[in-house]
């Protein structure tokens, strides 16, 4: 959904963690965040530093480069989601990726990031993503193979031929009506004719 230029945002009180291995990349991220009103973003240049930081300080937003020196940003986010650190384990996370080799595409999907942004990174792209994250209402899922925001964007019901495993899964077969049928006048009202000029 496009964001109006007149919309109001307030990141002045947000605790933002930037994880980026290069000085230049960190400068770029920091300057963009300062522009957005973030007072003093926390900076970590490696996954190890970030892990140490996240174990101590609560963070509201993490912006993390995918390619770090010690371990990938993917692994860092996967660790965070399983860390049970409260509240950081569920913190909104943006993973920033440059060229992504095919072997890393699946990592990006499964690491548990809320959003993956492909470079080149511009202020508009990043702000759109942050605002989108603020509106994100997905549940947090923990299973043997995945921890992070629900990867399902639409509920299409259980797979065909199965009953579904969730309490709110609906059956594919239609049962008996539980409400009285609509009156013809009610149906007519839905198709109210209007005059048109030809």
């Amino acid at each position, binding site marked *: 959904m496009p964001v109006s*230029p007149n919309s109001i945002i307030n990141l002045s009180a947000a605790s933002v963690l930037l994880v980026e291995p290069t000085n230049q990349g960190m400068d770029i991220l920091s300057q963009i965040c300062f*522009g957005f009103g973030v007072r003093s973003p926390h900076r970590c240049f490696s996954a190890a530093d970030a892990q140490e930081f996240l174990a101590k300080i609560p963070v509201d937003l993490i912006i993390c480069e995918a390619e770090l020196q010690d371990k990938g940003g993917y692994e860092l986010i996967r660790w965070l989601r399983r860390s049970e650190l409260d509240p950081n384990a569920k913190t909104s996370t943006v993973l920033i990726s440059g060229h992504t080799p095919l072997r890393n595409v699946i990592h990006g999907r499964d690491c548990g990031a809320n959003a993956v942004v492909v470079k080149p990174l511009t202020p508009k792209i990043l702000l759109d993503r942050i605002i989108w994250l603020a509106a994100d*209402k997905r549940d947090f899922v923990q299973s043997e193979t995945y921890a992070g925001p629900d990867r399902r964007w639409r509920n299409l019901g259980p797979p065909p031929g199965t009953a579904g495993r969730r309490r709110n899964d609906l059956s594919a077969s239609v049962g008996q009506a539980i409400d009285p049928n609509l009156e013809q006048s009610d149906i007519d009202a839905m198709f109210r004719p209007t005059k048109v000029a030809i």
Partner: protein
Amino acid sequence: MSVVISKSTNRLAKLLRKPGGAITVSRALNSAKVNLDAIRPECCRTIDRILEDMAALFDAGKGLENAPTLYKLSNQVVGFAGSMDMMELSQAAYSLCETLDRMITAERWSSPPVQVHLAAMSRLRQVDGNQDICKAIIDGLKRVAAQIALS
């Protein structure tokens, strides 16, 4: 382990709406752009230094051995150049990453396409802002990348 689904509090949503210190989206974007412009000269110097390093790595003639480092440096150029509005240079660097990734995966080195990309990236830095030349260089690189994909 069973699947546990829980609601999480979106702290970002609460902060974004907090009164005091709020700014409009357009002001935030303008401020970020002004801040980026301020570090542009330094960023251009970094890009030039990376391009020199890449040329030196290529000239060392170690082929596939240096490919992962070349890939890493080219990936940095994708991000730095793109954030500084040098979109053609960012595209060329991305194309080189694509080329190198194929070579690394196939464990097969070929110097000409890498050389063409490095020359193109260096030329794009020299003609920064000249849209016609930039477009011609990018079109040429796309043809080179297509040739590699077919071979």
